[in-house]
């Protein structure tokens, strides 16, 4: 048994390790950029809706439509559909660098929606109390809206991250590698079932761990 394991590791260990690194790179970088774009978009979605601080019908509808359109497109299609855009932004369309752009385009609107629903849960009365104290709107956004919904935000980001891990499986099509790609190319196409099982197992552990971490952090941030 142990001989079998060491034989497997000798053969596949390096590939699996680099696949893990690639997955972490893709998820980490595109999550960071997606949050930087998605969180403000979510705030904007909340503030521009009717009867909110920055009520703006045109902007609200525009944002809504654009987000819905992007979210309608399956990632595999989006990946090819925006190739020219990817080339323009990243300078390349292959490898980890080339897949970050489509991953961000895919994830940022999703995060915007998740942030929107988290922020909408915040008690209107608290925002009002801060308006009544003469606190500036930008301070209210951060110190009331985001702060009060941070528990839901963490849960939302957990969901988004797991979705992102799923999307990176298709990144192999543009040569970016990662765990999903390894399972597909070697495990599925070349009938190396061992490789498929091991990578799927690693993905399960990863997703399971992330969800538990998200749940614990969210519960800790929640004070009511």
């Amino acid at each position, binding site marked *: 048994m142990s001989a079998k394991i060491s034989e497997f590791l000798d053969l596949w260990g390096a590939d699996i390790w680099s696949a893990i690194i690639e997955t972490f790179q893709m998820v980490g970088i595109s999550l960071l950029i997606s949050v930087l774009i998605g969180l403000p978009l979510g705030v904007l979605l909340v503030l521009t809706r009717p009867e909110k601080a920055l009520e703006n019908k045109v902007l609200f509808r525009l944002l809504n439509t654009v987000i819905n359109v992007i979210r309608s497109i399956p990632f595999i299609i989006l990946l090819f559909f925006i190739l020219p855009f990817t080339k323009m932004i990243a300078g390349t369309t292959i490898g980890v660098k080339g897949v970050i752009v489509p991953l961000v385009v895919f994830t940022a609107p999703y995060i915007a929606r998740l942030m929107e629903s988290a922020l909408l849960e915040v008690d209107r009365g608290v925002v009002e109390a801060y308006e009544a104290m003469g606190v500036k709107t930008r301070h209210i956004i951060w110190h009331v809206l985001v702060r009060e919904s941070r528990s839901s935000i963490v849960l939302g980001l957990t969901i988004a991250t797991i979705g992102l891990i799923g999307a990176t499986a298709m990144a192999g099509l543009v040569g970016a590698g990662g765990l999903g790609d390894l399972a597909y190319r070697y495990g599925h196409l070349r009938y190396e079932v061992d490789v498929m099982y091991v990578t799927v197992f690693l993905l399960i552990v990863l997703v399971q761990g992330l969800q538990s971490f998200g749940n614990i952090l969210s519960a800790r941030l929640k*004070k009511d």
Partner: protein
Amino acid sequence: MIRLENITKTYQSGETVTKAVDDVSLQVEKGTIYGVIGYSGAGKSTLVRMVNLLERPTNGKVFINDVELTSLSTGKLQKTRQRIGMIFQSFNLLKTGTVHQNIAIPLKLTGVPKKEIENRVDKYLEIVGLSDKRDAYPSQLSGGQKQRVAIARALAHEPDVLLCDEATSALDPDTTESILALLEQINRDFGITILLITHEMHVVQKICHEVAVMENGKVIEQGRVVDIFSQPETSTAKRFVQSLFQDELPESLVTRLKENGQIVNLSFIGERSGSPALAHVSKKFDVYPSILAGNITQLKDQPFGRLIVHLEGNADETNRAVAFLEESGVVVEGYVQEVEAHVS
């Protein structure tokens, strides 16, 4: 000082226009506690929210300390709002912040220096009696304690004016008492002008100097609390006063007693008690007074009493007795079996 000039607020939804507040003017002098009372839907909540422009009036002007708020730019309005405290029925504290953070964060965001923030948090927590709850979260506090934190948060900005939007409506009677006592203390010790709205006459009775009665968006009666208590003019005001005195008489009794004499409602204020006057009545006139119901209650600064008395005798004598009572400073009204239950 707060001054509202011809404030109107209309809401439009589709074709229908609703007037929530209709041409209201009122003035709250510096250092007074002013109550606005009305049933739900009377427009009082909209009214108080227009004082700091949480809602902008459709028409009319709002002045605080002679500054016209309605004409200020957003930046100036924010500065002015820092001098206007407000507390709410639902407390509106940050759930994710401790008591300390709930008071300190708004101070930080309005530019109070760090050292000063700590001083003020300590000072005002002490005043509201929650120094030991500094690190508790709102979910660990009772309703009354939450409202105390909200009061400390408002006071920490050292405002000239405090607005209370149904601040005691979510609290039980004992807690209501203690919050009212705290508001009274704040008014006395810091000279903060308080404008409160409520649907409980008890609140007005307990701490207000002046009161306005609202109905259908209009102020239908306003004046000193003692005057409204002793001589309410509108039926709504009468109902509110009545709500404090459980002195409805059985109808059969009223009918029987009215056959020989009249039943009157006597109101008297302060030391000038109604009872001695009543004693004189029986000596001076051929009238036998008997007290059917009576109650003395404490208004903010003086006692207020109400007696329902049967004056037995012929019409001439009882009318003269009534005239005498009025001369002695007692407000006399015929007893009316009315006050149909208000459906709200």
